[in-house]
């Protein structure tokens, strides 16, 4: 499931710990992932405006922006993006709680690399399914609401390109 994808997984890693980002990115690239690095919340959000991501690994606490804001902004930009939240402590503040709700999964540092790697693939697959389901739902909706076959072909074409582009 994880290796069959024709397109490489597009991943964003956002953490203010440069060593972590550098080496984690390096190892994941070695596994064939397309990785973009961000060392602050702002960098992560600006990357999100330029590049489409399947998955983002986001540190809960960065000096300029807390993880929950980063997640919110990324999700605003890219509704289908799946976020894995990375945290150095099992703190119980509101950001952590909210993050738990927004994130696909949260994991504690230090993580198990293999586990993290698998999780990125799972998240990407999850995203793909969600998109597919939504596409199908919208298509069904379109078919139910549109009478003219020409309209249907035209509209569904638009829809397809919208989702395929993602």
């Amino acid at each position, binding site marked *: 499931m994880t290796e069959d994808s024709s397109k490489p997984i597009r991943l964003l890693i956002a953490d203010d710990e440069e060593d972590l980002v550098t*080496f984690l990115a390096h190892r994941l690239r070695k596994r064939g992932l397309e990785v973009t690095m961000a060392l602050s919340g702002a960098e992560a959000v600006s990357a999100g405006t330029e590049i489409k991501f399947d998955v983002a690994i986001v540190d809960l606490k960065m000096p300029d922006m807390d993880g929950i804001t980063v997640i919110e902004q990324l999700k605003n930009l890219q509704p289908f993006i799946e976020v894995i939240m990375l945290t150095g402590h099992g703190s119980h503040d509101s950001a952590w709680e909210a993050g738990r709700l927004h994130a696909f999964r949260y994991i504690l540092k230090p993580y198990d690399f293999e586990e993290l790697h698998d999780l990125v693939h799972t998240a990407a697959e999850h995203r793909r399914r969600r998109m597919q389901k939504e596409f199908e739902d919208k298509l069904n909706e379109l078919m139910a609401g549109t009478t003219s076959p020409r309209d249907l072909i035209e509209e569904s074409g638009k829809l397809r390109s919208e989702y395929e582009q993602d």
Partner: protein
Amino acid sequence: MSTNRINTALVADGRQLTDLLAGLVTRSPLLRLNVVAVVDLDPGPDSPDLGLFEGTGIKKISTDINDILTREDLDLVILGSENHDVAAALRSGLFPHIPVLGPEAHKIIQGAIRLAEDNRALRADSRRLKETRLRLNIFVETAPLSIYIKDTELRYRKMNNHAQRVLGVRENEILGKRDSIVFPEGGARWLQKVEQETLNSRRTLHASGVLPVQGQMMHVQVTLFPVIENGRVEGLYGLVEDTTELFEKDQKLHAVDEQLNEAQKYLREVLENSRDIIFLTDPKGNILTFNSGAETSLGFSMDDVVGTPAHQLCANPGKFEKLFTAALREGHAVSYEAEFRSKDRRPVICNISLTLIDGPDGKPLEVVCLCRDLTTRLRLKNDLIRSERLAAVGQMASGVAHEINNPLAVIDTIAGLVEETLEEEGEALKPETRKILSKAMERLHHQVQRVTTITHSLLGFVRTQHSGMANVDIQELLEECLDVLGTEIRRSQTEIVRLYTSDIPEFTSDPMLLQQVFVNLIKNAIDAMAESPGRSGILEIMTNIDAKRVLVTIQDNGVGIAQEEQEKIFNLFHTTKPAGQGTGLGLSIVHDILYRLGGTIRVASEPGLWTRFVVEVPLTPPETLLPDPSISL
């Protein structure tokens, strides 16, 4: 002699005259006869003796009939003789105006006299009867009792003054009428029933009840007896006594009595249900009663201790006796910290107040011992201290953990990279070098894991934060814990014995926190059993319930905990595990969680044999959760 008497002359022969005189003269005043002349026609030995007639007014007995013929005051002549000549002479018209009674007259008169005598006796009887009746009447009319007479149809035949006054009726209004006149609203039916029964049974009956009298309820006591004449029931007498006042007094007395009882009961209940230890002793110090607070705190039942000396309950009997003596002397004695020993030899710290109660004779009767169990308070105080300490440590620990986790993540990631690279491209290195580097990377990874265990459990510690109240099914929760620990249980080949009490209702608590408690305890148990080789681990999980809490007992047959260790195991950073294997956090966290959920945990152990933890969780959580020791970062 009075003039309205009948002047009579008696004429007879000797013997007859005697009879006549005896019969008449002696009774002459009664007969209103005034014997003025007596003629003996034939004097003889039977002739009357004048001495007999002394005081009767008869002066002499003549033998000459002419004596009476000359009298002009005669009204009557009684001729008692068969002497026809004389009779003829008298009747011939000598005294045509004077009645002459024949010789039978004296018999008639004798009869008349007897009649008169009988009559007199009758008159006397009748007078007595009249008097009795009068007296009875006076009694009936003046008695403070309602008295009435009814006929067999229960119609009034008589009603006395008192009854009339009480009922507000006049006798003439109700005579011949039934009760419907007297009690138009009804309410006397019970009385009529008893009256009917009196008539039917011919027996005197008593009854009491309430009658509506002039708009008020009157409590009465009634005596009914039948009037029987010639074997026939003619009616009945009713005696009615107003007992309202008596009844009210009785009621009042009853109420006072009830209040007294109530007060007594209340006092008894307060004493009985007080959570304080309260017992009574005699002046020698032997226990008389023992309340439920005492039973709960000390574990003894009342039957265990009644009759035994109270000082036997104390850790230091001498000290108690001293206090007791002081109480007998001074009337009161207090000790702020005394130690009792519970049935299971647990120390129970109390303050004691002894008060002497004197009997009515002024001699010491009993001593009230009121003791407040401070053990819980001391424990709570300790818990609070521990909790506060945990808070401080928690704050620090999570901060430290965070700071360590970041570099650890970097180290681990880099170590992984090196490891991977060595595997993929390590051919260039000497085989030994490659081997030792591989080993080094593996160890580095291992050491990171070790630190991770500690930092993560430190974070787990912080995570004892209250996550949310929900309904807890204890059995389900315990099964979840066993699931979580599935790998460890299988690996250690631990046998799980489930002793669940069925039908424990769901209760409100924090399931996440409780899970953490039981996972910790079960994990500890598995570890303890692993340390006692050669014996297969048996873990017993038992659930119980009482009125206020759910009890979960987790018992293992592991190495056990030494007595002196048992008090410390809940302390922070205290661990019995080998270095690097325990953080000394688990039981602290467990203790802390239970403290905040209003529960408790107790430990008992037999070193080398078994360890038992008993967790108590209240069925209703504390209104506000107790202070959270971990502080948000």
